[in-house]
């Protein structure tokens, strides 16, 4: 039943990795390579933010399930503030069809693209995809519109979301994507449409074609994509050769040595005078 060739399953994170560096992508998705490396410029700070982000998503999901997690949100001031911002937002209401933590995948050529929706809200014929963001900085809306997440999520919903719409396909024009920044209580809205939808499909096919041709050479440049916005986890693996050169000693530097030099290295043994009987 299991075929030899496996369909590649990609998320927005995977597609971003591809854009950043083909080798990073290969080490992560094609030939997964465990490679311990410091994460980010301040690992503990980024760890805390990630942890709080995960907790917020859990609390919001619990709220969507009909539970009241307000008491749980009190454990951390950031979490409490974020959760209150969420509660005050226009997307916290649970009246009408609301789907939380929804996983959908769609096929494009030989590739499967996957999206995990924080929330999908149906308002009449309109579908709103909401993604909760905990980052401190508000991004440029134009830059965000070209991000793979903003492209992929509406695409996947239009492709395979019919089950949410009584078996009827959802038109791209009926979908909008909202990034809600809980730190600021602000949102960035991106409208999907047919032209954009076909553009995403073309982009995915183009990526797929370049993956097929790729030799997975590094496409990031040291000091740019390798180190910014945060150092790549595989930096030390990719740059092993460079790092070695810094410490290598040229053959010319090796001193001429004689037998005495070797003898000098021998440990000094002490022998018992008396033989040991066995």
């Amino acid at each position: 039943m299991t075929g030899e060739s496996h369909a590649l399953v990609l998320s927005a994170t995977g597609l971003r990795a591809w854009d950043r560096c083909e080798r990073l992508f290969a080490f992560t998705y094609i030939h997964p390579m465990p490679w311990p490396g410091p994460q980010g410029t301040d690992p503990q700070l980024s760890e805390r933010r990630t942890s709080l982000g995960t907790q917020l998503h859990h609390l919001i999901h619990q709220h969507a399930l009909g539970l009241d997690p307000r008491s749980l949100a009190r454990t951390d001031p950031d979490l409490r503030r974020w959760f209150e911002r969420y509660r005050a937002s226009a997307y916290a209401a649970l009246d009408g069809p609301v789907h939380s933590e929804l996983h959908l995948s769609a096929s494009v050529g030989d590739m499967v693209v996957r999206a995990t929706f924080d929330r999908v809200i149906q308002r009449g014929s309109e579908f709103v995809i909401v993604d909760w963001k905990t980052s401190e900085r508000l991004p440029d809306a134009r830059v965000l519109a070209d991000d793979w997440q903003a492209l992929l999520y509406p695409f996947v919903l239009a492709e395979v979301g019919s089950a949410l719409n009584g078996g009827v396909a959802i038109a791209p024009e009926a979908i909008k994507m909202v990034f809600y920044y809980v730190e600021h209580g602000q949102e960035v809205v991106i409208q999907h449409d047919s032209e954009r939808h076909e553009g995403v499909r073309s982009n995915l096919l183009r990526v797929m074609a370049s993956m097929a041709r790729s030799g997975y050479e590094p496409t990031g440049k040291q000091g740019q994509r390798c180190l910014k916005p945060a150092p790549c986890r595989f930096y030390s693996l990719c740059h092993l050769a460079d790092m070695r050169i810094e410490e290598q000693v040229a053959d010319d530097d090796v001193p001429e040595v004689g037998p005495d030099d070797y003898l000098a290295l021998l440990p000094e043994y002490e022998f018992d005078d008396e033989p040991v009987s066995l």
Partner: protein
Amino acid sequence: MSGADGVLDGWSTDLSHPPRVLNGPPGSGKTGVLLMRFRQLLQSGEFPTGVVVWVSNQQAVQHWQQVIRDWNHRGVNATVMTFRSWVRQELMQNWALVESSGVLPGKPPQARPFFIGLMAAQHILSDCCAEIDPKHDVLAESFTAPAMRRVQVLDAYARVIEHGLPYDTVLPRLNACHDAGPQSQAFHVYIAEAIAAYRSRCMTYRVLDHALQLELFTLALLNHRGYLQRLAAHTQHVLVDDFEECCPVALRVIDHVSKKARSVLVACNPLGGLREYLGGDPVGARALSQGFEERYLMISEAALPAASLADYLYARAVDEAAASVNPSGKRSILSLHPSCVLRVQMFDVLIARVRALVAQGVPSQQIVVIAPMVDPLLLWHLREGLAQDGLPLRVLTGTNRVVDHRPVRVLTTLVRLARPQWQMPPPEADVTEMLETLLNLHPLESPHVQRGVYQDGQLNVADTVNWPRLLENRRASYDGLYGWVKQMCESEAPLDVLLEQAFAQVYAPRCLLGLAPDGVKGEAGSLKSTDVAMDVLQIDQLIQNARTHRHLMAALGEGSAGDPKRFLRSIYAGELAERPLIPRGSLPAAVTLYTAAKYAEEGAPVAHQLWVDVASPLWWKSDIREFINPRVLSRNWDEGMYTEDHDQRDQALKLGRTLRAIVSKCRVGLDVFASDHGSDGAELSGELLGWFAEFAHATRAIANGTATEVSL
């Protein structure tokens, strides 16, 4: 043609209550039927999130996900998980409900629980036991090491919870099954106190191991009407592979869901799988599955390649008079190699056989070596013998100490040097090894350098050392190393981050040159890089464990940095020391060495199985433990005292089921190796070799000079 073909013929999407049950021995195609059913549901337009799939272990999860991926089905994203993972998911999603249920101690609620595994559980329990131990002087007379005591305590707790019993039933049950001598009673009181202290601490801090998850799920969610309504409403179809017959909690969930779900299909093994035996409650397992009996769907056993041998060995082990040989005609081969006089000779024959198989083009992942117990001699011979052909050995047993890996020792030495304030200077031998590794020194050279540069637990600047002329070319390299250690002395990074930096900045550039940049392509055929990959996996696992330890300490309110010294100590002597840090996921190329029990429980089917030490009596193992008796902690134990007769019966049953489970996973060939004497020179008298010989004789085997081959 599979025995499973046609089982689903005529099925519609909806299957009314009660659940349908698939029966068939291991390898008969039950999983295939479940996968077909899943596909059938999706093709009929069912939404994947409404289909819940439970499988028995993580390997099965990966198998399902891979098959689903291969279908490339639009929109497919199935929820495939083990029952335990599903319980964890339900707890996470409904944590607000759990917090408000009143089951947990009255501390401030937390946003989410912290889930832990066995090692972290041992770690917490050892703290709890520190207060209890002095009260029980009798423990000093115990034959069981403290670490093993803690495992037994946790095991006792897990067992009663799995069987749906209150945790405080442990003490009366243990007392009832043993003679009530003072030492025995003191042991049992100790266990009960340890469980109570552990449970209280974990519940207070919301730090949950498997047993606590199951207990909280039962107490807080399975008794909550709103939760049950939501569960039933959202679950349209349930597919269960390898149902844990002895778990009443799982059965309760299935029973509840099946009243509203449109279909429930459960795969079982009518003769009882290994899981049922390990649960120790065959009576309960049979009783629990009785409700399903009317809906059995049998799968033909003819699909199993080595069914005949599997059944024969099972029957011989449990001493059934009906042990008979009925060759299935399938093309799998049993090869009986002549018994060697000495055990080391057997290793040579074994290694030669592995070489021959690899030379024939058998992928190394399709070869497993199975032993009743893995001892250092077997490990060393196999590792060294295979290394001569560039074949790495992967060991899946409990004997693969993490500090046996040189990279692990080198990294821990580096961090100890970089943290003088911990007052844990590394031993001189470890510093010598680190210098040898990182400066690429000859073993003759490294002690000399070590004596020069390492004093009072610290490294010295190269300038202050009488540096040998021969090693002048290593001086710059040493300077780099010294500079890194000094730089890190000023950093406040936690242990896991420090280990990451030591790996990425020191170890990798100095020791792994050549892995990149061509590591992406063709590493499947490159044995050198596979070997390196195993080291890197091990280091990665070590770092993950250090990180989990730090997070655990924070969850227990012991500070965000945790106690790195305690973690370091524990990998040399403690919870982590005797347990392998087995990396998850498959490796490109490696022969795997399993203990029989491990392979029976977790091993995937392979082409070739090589059984060693088949004449050893170690295949029979008593389950009587000094502290607990797993049988009497099961749900339906009503036999009073646990006697030697019970133990012998259980040993035979366990062996029978283990042998059957292992043979069932053999696809092409099974080789049997034995020696007349053990490593200590004693003559071996285990009966298993004789059973193989009987089987071969009964099938009119033809000897070909080197081994006896039998078509099964």
